[in-house]
C-alpha cells in the first residue's frame, strides 16, 4: 500500500536535491527502530512469561510448605508460632495473600485464627493503602478490611473518602459485615458515594450486616433529608433481612413520598414484611400512573391481601402493562387463588397465556 510512495520519492523536485537519499536513510532508520521494537516486545513478552512462571513455581513451593501448617493452625491443634516459623522474612506479603484465600471463606473461631495468623505481616500492607495507584490502594484496603480491622479500622474507614470510587467501594464492602456492625454508621454516611452502583446490589451489600443493622436502616429510611435513592436502597436492604419493624416506617414513607424508586422499594418491602393494617395504603398504589409502582403494589397485595383484594388483582391481570399483569398473576398465585388463574387460562382471553405461564411456574 505505502509502496506507492516510492513514486513520490522518485519524482518531483525535492528529491533531486539529495532529499531522496535522506529520506531513504530516514526510512532505513525507521525500519530498524520498528524491528528493534518488535524484537524488544517479543523478548519482553517471553520475559514476562518467565516471570509469571517463576512466580507460579514460588507459589507452589510456598503452598507445599504452608498447606498443612495452616490447616493445623486454623484447627487450633498447634500454636500460631508453628506456622509463623515457616514464613521467611521475605515471604510476608505472600503469606498475607495466602491467608486471605482462607479467611474469605471462614467463619467463627477459625476466621479469628486466620486473622491472628496474618497480624505479624499486616504492617507490610499498611503503606500500600496510601499508594498512588488506586488499584493497589483498593487491594490493600481489602486486605486490611478482611484481616486487620481490629488494628487498622481507621485506615479502612478513611478509605470511604478515597477519591477513587473503587477504593471507597472496597472499603464499604469490608466494613459492611455481620461480624462488625459497629462499622456500619460510617458506611451509611457515605452511601451517597455509591449511588451509581446497582441499587439492588448495594442493598444486598448492606443486608450482609444482618438484623443488627436494621435500626440504622430504619432511621435512614425515615429521614426525609436523605436522598430518595439512598432511602430506596435501605428500604430494599430492610426487605432482604425481613425486618418486620420496618413496615411502619415504610407506611409513613409511602404516605408522604412520591419518588417512584422510593415508593416502589417501600412497596416491595411491604410485600415482605407488611401487615394487614397497611393494606389500605398499599391498595391505593394499584392505581398509580407508574407501571413499576403498580407492579410492586400488586405483588404486595399478593402477600398481604385479603379476599377482597383478589378482584383487584384479577383486574390487574388485564393491566395495559404486561409487567403489571405478570406481577398480578403471580400475586394471585401467592394469594392462593389458583382457581381464578385456571379460569383465565382456559378463557381464551388475551392474557390466558399469562395465567398458563404462572400456573406452570407452580410445578417448577
Amino acid at each position, binding site marked *: 500500500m505505502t509502496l506507492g510512495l516510492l513514486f513520490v520519492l522518485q519524482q518531483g523536485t525535492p528529491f533531486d536535491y539529495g532529499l531522496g537519499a535522506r529520506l531513504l536513510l530516514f526510512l532505513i532508520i525507521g525500519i530498524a527502530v520498528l524491528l528493534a521494537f518488535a524484537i524488544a516486545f517479543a523478548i519482553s513478552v517471553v520475559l514476562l512469561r518467565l516471570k509469571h512462571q517463576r512466580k507460579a513455581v514460588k507459589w507452589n513451593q510456598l503452598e507445599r510448605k504452608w498447606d498443612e501448617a495452616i490447616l493445623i493452625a486454623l484447627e487450633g491443634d498447634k500454636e500460631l508460632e508453628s506456622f509463623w516459623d515457616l514464613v521467611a522474612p521475605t515471604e510476608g506479603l505472600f503469606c498475607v495473600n495466602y491467608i486471605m484465600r482462607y479467611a474469605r471463606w471462614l467463619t467463627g473461631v477459625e476466621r479469628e485464627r486466620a486473622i491472628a495468623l496474618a497480624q505479624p505481616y499486616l504492617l507490610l500492607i499498611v503503606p500500600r493503602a496510601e499508594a498512588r495507584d488506586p488499584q493497589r490502594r483498593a487491594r490493600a484496603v481489602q486486605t486490611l478490611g478482611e484481616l486487620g480491622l481490629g488494628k487498622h479500622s481507621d485506615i479502612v474507614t478513611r478509605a470511604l473518602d478515597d477519591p477513587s470510587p473503587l477504593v471507597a467501594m472496597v472499603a464499604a464492602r469490608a466494613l459492611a459485615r455481620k461480624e462488625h456492625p459497629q462499622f456500619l454508621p460510617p458506611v451509611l454516611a457515605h452511601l451517597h458515594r455509591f449511588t451509581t452502583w446497582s441499587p439492588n446490589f448495594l442493598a*444486598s451489600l448492606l443486608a450482609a450486616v444482618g438484623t443488627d443493622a436494621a435500626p440504622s436502616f430504619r432511621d435512614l429510611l425515615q429521614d426525609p433529608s436523605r436522598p430518595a435513592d439512598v432511602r430506596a436502597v435501605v428500604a430494599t436492604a430492610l426487605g432482604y433481612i425481613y425486618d418486620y419493624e420496618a413496615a411502619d416506617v415504610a407506611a409513613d414513607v409511602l404516605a408522604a413520598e412520591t419518588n417512584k424508586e422510593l415508593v416502589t422499594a417501600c412497596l416491595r418491602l411491604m410485600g415482605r414484611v407488611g401487615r394487614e393494617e397497611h393494606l389500605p395504603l398499599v391498595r391505593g398504589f394499584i392505581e398509580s400512573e407508574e407501571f413499576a409502582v403498580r407492579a410492586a403494589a400488586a405483588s404486595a397485595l399478593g402477600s398481604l391481601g385479603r379476599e377482597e383484594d383478589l378482584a383487584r388483582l384479577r383486574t390487574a391481570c388485564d393491566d395495559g402493562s404486561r409487567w403489571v399483569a405478570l406481577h398480578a398473576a403471580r400475586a394471585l398465585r401467592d394469594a392462593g387463588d389458583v382457581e381464578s388463574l385456571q379460569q383465565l387460562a382456559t378463557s381464551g382471553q388475551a392474557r390466558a397465556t399469562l395465567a398458563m*405461564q404462572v400456573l406452570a411456574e407452580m410445578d417448577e
Partner: protein
Amino acid sequence: MRDTVIMLLVGFNGVILVYFILLNSVYLFTSLIAFRDIRRYVRRLKSLDLGDLLSSEGVPPVTIVAPAFNEEMTCVDAVRSLLTLEYPQYDILVVNDGSKDRTLDRLTEAYGLVNAARLPTAEIPTAPVRGILQSRQYPNLWVVDKENGGKADALNAGLNLCVTPLFCAMDADSVLERDALTRIVRPFLEDARTIATGGVVRIANGCTVEGGAITKVGFPKNLWARFQVLEYLRSFLAGRMGWSALDATLIISGAFGVFRRSIVVDAGGYATKRTSGPTVGEDMELVVRLHRHCRENKIPYKIGFIPDPVAWTECPETIRTLARQRDRWQRGMAESLMRHSKMLLNPRYGRVGLAAYPYFFFLETFGVGVEIAGYVAFVVTVLMGLAAPVYVAGFFMAAFAFGMVLSIAAVGLEELGFRRYPKISHLTRLFVLAAVENIGYRQLISLWRLHGMISALRGVRTWGEQERRGFDDVPATATLEPAESSEND
C-alpha cells in the same frame, strides 16, 4: 498524458501516506491505551471477589438468548455447556430459527422439551413463532420455535420473551466459560448506567472441549485458524479495549454481549426487515443505535468492553468460508455506519461521533478501498518504471515492521493479563504469525473486505453459507473436528 497520470499517482500516493499514518497511529494509540487499562484492570480484579457477586441477592437475573439455525451437530452440547454456567439466576432461551435439520428434535429428545406458555413482554415484530417449549428437567431452559427470519429476527423473538433486566446475546455454537456471566455482569453492578457490555471472543479451534467446557487451550493446526487467533487478540485486547477506555465502544460481538433489556426494547430491538431495516451486521448496528438512542433522548448510559469474560468460538478454516465471513463483517460495518451517518463528526454524539465513528467510517470501512487502490498504484508505479527497487523494499519493510510491532504488542497484552495460551511454544508461534501474516494474509483479508464494502454499497444482504466444524464428535470429550451447518437470512 503521461504527466497527468504521474500527477494523479503523486496525489494519490499522498492520500495513501496519510491513510497509512493515520490508521497505524490509531492502532498504536489504542494499543497503548489498552496496555494502561489492562494493567489497571488486572489489578482491579484482585480487589474484587467474584464469590461475593455470586452469593449476592442483588445480582440481576439474566436471560441467555441463543439463536440456532441448523445446529443439530452442536446444539445439545452447546446447551449443556450453558446449563453449567456459574450464575445465581438465569434463563436459557434457545431460538430455533426455522432450522431445516433436526435441531429442534435433538433438543427435545435431550432435554425433554414440552409445550409451555410464556407471555411476551415486548412486541418487536418477528417472523411467526410456532411454539414455545420448556425443559422438564431444567425449568430455566426454554426453546422458541419460529419460522426462519435470520439471526437478528431470532434475537428479537428471544427479547420479546425475556423477563429479566439483562439479556445475553450469543451464538448457539459458542462456549462460554463457566464464570463468564458473573464477570460480564459486573459492570452493570458497578455502574447502574451500564446498558451494554461486550466480552472477549477467543478461537476454540484446537482446544479440547469436555462436558461443554474448554478444558485445554490448544493452538489450531489449520493455518487460517492460527492467523485468526492472532487477529482476535489484536482486535479484542488492543482495539476494543482501547476504544472502551476512551468510552467510545462501537462494536460488541454478536457472539457474546450482555445488554439491558429495557433500553434495547425501547430502541426497537435488533434491525431486521420487520423493524428498522435489515442488515448483516446486526450486532454493530444495535450498539451504534443504542448510542444514538441514548444521546438523542438524553439518557445517561455506558457501553463498554471488558477483557476477562470469555466466549470460545469456532472460526473458519477454509479460505472460502473465511472470505465470506470477512465479506459479511465488512458489509455489516458499512451498513451500520451508513445508516447512522448523521452521527459522523457530529459533536452531539460526543466521542463516539467525533472519534470512534470517523475512525470506523473513514479508516476501517472505506479505507480498505484506499488500501487496495494503493496496491494497484504500486503495481502501476513499478510497471511504469517510476520506483527504485530500494524504496519499494524499504516501504514494504516499514509496513511489515509496523504490522509486526502491533501484533506482538497484542500478544504482550494477552501475556500481561490473561495468559490463556499456556506454553512458551504458543508464544513463539504467535510471534512467527505476527511476521508471516503480513505477507499475503492481510492483503487477502483486505481484498475480501473491499468486496464486502462494494457489496454493501450495492445493497447485497445475504449471509452466505458458513461452514462449521462442530465442537463435539464424541459427546463427552473431543477436539474440534469437521461438521457442517449454515445460517441464512
